[in-house]
C-alpha cells in the first residue's frame, strides 16, 4: 500500500509538471466540446420542411413523397398559406418551405412547365447550399418521372395518403446537440484515458526508467495500480468537466442519477485504461502506441453509433459492437442523461463493461513482464 502511495505521488508530480499533459487534461475537453459538438453536427440529415401544396393532386403528392423518402428531409407541417409557412422560417421551426402552385398537374398535362418554389433559410450559407442541391436533385428526379409518365399516358390514380403524426420522446425538440454531447463526452474520456495511460508507460520504456522499476521489488499489481489510479481520476475529472460544459453551454438535460452515471464511467474507465495498458505493453515506442491507439479508437468511434444509429448498421457490424466499449458507454450516457434510465434498464451494459474491464486488467497484469 505504501509503495502504491509513493508511485501515485510520483505520477501526480509528473502529470502536473508535464507541459503537454496539462493542456490535454484541462483544455482538450473544452475545445472538443465546443468544436466537435458543432462540427459533428449532422442536422443536414434532418432538414425541417414545411409544405404548401395548393395543387393536392397525385403529381403533387408524388413530389412530396419523394422528399419524404429521402433521409434528409423531415416534413414538419403543411400549410395553405405561404405567409404562414414563411413565418415558420422566421421562427426557425423550418429550414425549407416548398410551395407547389395550384393546377400543377393540370399545367403539366397541358404541356406547360409549372414552377415549384423552394424558400430556404440561408442564415447558414453552407446549410442552405446543401439543402438547395439536395432539393434540386430530388426535383430532377421528379421531372424525369413525370416525363416518363407523360410518355406512357396520364393515369388518373389518386394516391391515398395516411398521415402520420410524429412525436419525439426524450428529445422532443430533436436537438441534435443533446444527442451529440453525450457521445462526444464518451470520446473525450476514452481518448484521454487510453492515450495518456498508453503514452505514459511507453515513455517510461523509452527513457529506460521502466527497467529501473523492474529491478526494484515493486509488484506488478502495484505498478499497474500506480499507473491506473491517476488516469482514472483524470478521466473522471474530465467526464465531470464534459458534463458540466454540456449542461452549461448546450443545456443537455441530466434526467437520470449522477451516481449511476459516474459508476458506469468508473467501470468504463477501468476497461479503457486496461486497453491502454495492454497497448503499451505490446509497443516499444510512442509512435507505435499512438498508431495502435488511434487505429482502435477510430474504428470503435465510427462503429459506436456516434454519427449513425447502430440499428441501421449491417448485422455483422452490430455484432462487432458487442465488444465495442464506446457503443456501450454512448448508449448508457444517452439513456441516463436524456431518458433518465435507471440501473435495471442498464444491467446488461453494466455487466458487459464490468466483465470486459476485469478481463482487460487481468490480461494486462499477466502480460506485463518484469523479466524478459
Amino acid at each position, binding site marked *: 500500500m505504501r509503495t502504491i502511495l509513493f508511485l501515485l*505521488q510520483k505520477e501526480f508530480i509528473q502529470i502536473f509538471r508535464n507541459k503537454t499533459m496539462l493542456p490535454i487534461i484541462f483544455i482538450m475537453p473544452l475545445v472538443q466540446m465546443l468544436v466537435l459538438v458543432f462540427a459533428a453536427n449532422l442536422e443536414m440529415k434532418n432538414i425541417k420542411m414545411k409544405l404548401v401544396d395548393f395543387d393536392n393532386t397525385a403529381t403533387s403528392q408524388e413530389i412530396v413523397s419523394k422528399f419524404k423518402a429521402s433521409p434528409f428531409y423531415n416534413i414538419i407541417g403543411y400549410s395553405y398559406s405561404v405567409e404562414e409557412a414563411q413565418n415558420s422560417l422566421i421562427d426557425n421551426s423550418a429550414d425549407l418551405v416548398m410551395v407547389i402552385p395550384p393546377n400543377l398537374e393540370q399545367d403539366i398535362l397541358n404541356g406547360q412547365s409549372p414552377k415549384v418554389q423552394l424558400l430556404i433559410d440561408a442564415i447558414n450559407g453552407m446549410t442552405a447550399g446543401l439543402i438547395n442541391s439536395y432539393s434540386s436533385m430530388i426535383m430532377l428526379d421528379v421531372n424525369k418521372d413525370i416525363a416518363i409518365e407523360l410518355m406512357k399516358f396520364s393515369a388518373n390514380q389518386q394516391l391515398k395518403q395516411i398521415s402520420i403524426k410524429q412525436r419525439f420522446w426524450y428529445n422532443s425538440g430533436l436537438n441534435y446537440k443533446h444527442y451529440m454531447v453525450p457521445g462526444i463526452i464518451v470520446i473525450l474520456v476514452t481518448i484521454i484515458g487510453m492515450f495518456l495511460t498508453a503514452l505514459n508507460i511507453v515513455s517510461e520504456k523509452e*527513457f529506460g*526508467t521502466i527497467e529501473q522499476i523492474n*529491478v526494484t521489488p515493486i509488484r506488478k499489481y502495484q505498478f499497474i495500480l500506480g499507473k491506473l489510479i491517476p488516469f482514472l481520476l483524470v478521466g473522471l475529472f474530465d467526464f465531470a468537466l464534459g458534463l458540466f460544459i454540456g449542461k452549461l453551454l448546450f443545456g443537455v438535460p441530466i434526467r437520470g442519477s449522477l451516481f449511476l452515471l459516474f459508476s458506469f464511467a468508473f467501470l468504463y474507465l477501468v476497461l479503457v485504461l486496461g486497453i491502454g495498458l495492454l497497448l503499451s505493453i505490446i509497443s516499444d515506442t510512442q509512435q507505435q502506441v499512438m498508431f495502435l491507439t488511434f487505429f482502435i479508437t477510430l474504428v470503435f468511434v465510427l462503429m459506436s453509433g456516434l454519427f449513425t444509429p447502430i440499428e441501421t448498421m449491417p448485422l455483422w457490424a452490430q455484432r462487432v459492437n458487442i465488444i465495442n466499449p464506446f457503443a456501450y458507454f454512448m448508449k448508457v450516457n444517452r439513456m441516463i442523461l436524456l431518458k433518465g434510465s435507471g440501473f435495471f434498464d442498464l444491467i446488461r451494459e453494466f455487466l458487459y463493461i464490468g466483465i470486459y474491464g476485469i478481463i482487460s486488467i487481468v490480461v494486462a497484469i499477466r502480460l506485463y513482464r518484469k523479466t524478459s
Partner: protein
Amino acid sequence: MVDKYQNSIIKVRGLTKRFGKFTAVDNLNFDVSQSEIFGFLGANGAGKTTAIKILCGLSSPSEGNAEVAGFDVYKQTENIKKNIGYMSQSFSLYEDMTIVENIRFYGGIYGMPLTLLKERTNHMLNRLKMTEYANKLIKEIPLGWKQKLAFSVATLHRPKIVFLDEPTGGVDPITRRQFWDLIYEAIDIGITVFVTTHYMDEAEYCHRVSIMVDGKIAALDTPDNLKQQYNAKSMNEVFLQLARKK
C-alpha cells in the same frame, strides 16, 4: 574439500543464455564475495549486459544456475530485487522530477522508513555537495552529477550488492575518479559491487576482473595477476591480447 566460495554472495555455475541460435552468454562460472569490487569486462556485444540482466532478475537464463544474495535467479527474482541495487547505462532517474523527488521515490519503493529516508537523503546530498540543488530537475544537471546521483540512489537502501552496467559512459576522467571514490565508500559499508565497463583504467580499480570474449569468460583474476600472466603493463594490453586471440 572445503568450498572456498561457500560464503560467496554471487554464485554462477554454467550460466547460459541463448537468443534463438545465438548464444549471448556461454557457460559462465564465477563467484563474488562480499565487499568485493568485481569487474566484468568485455567488448561491446560480448554478453556483459545480458549476464548482468540475468543476475538482476530482469531476464531468465536458458541453462545453468546462479544465486544472488542467496536467492535463485529462476524462482526467487523478487527476493533478489529486494537485496540489490541497479544502475544502468541510462541511469534511469526521472528527468522531469527533482533530485530530492527521485531520492524519495526510490527510497520509498524499497520500503525505507521516512525518518531514515530523510536522514540518508541529507547525508547523501551533503556528500555529493548537491544540497543547494536538491530541487533542481534531473534534466537540468550535468551528466556526471546524474551518474553520481544514480549510484547513490541505487545504494540508498543499503543493498547487499549493487550492479553497475557501464556506469561511467561519456564523462571525463576526473568525474570518473570521483565516481570510483563513491564505489570505495560503498564497499566500506559492506556493499558488494559488480561493475561492467570497457574503460580499462577502471579495471585497475577492481579487486578482481573477469574478461568476457564472445559470451565466454576468457580470463578471471586480480588485475595484478592478469598483467603478470599475460606479461602486460596495463589491463588494456591484457584485454587486447585476449580479444585478438579469437
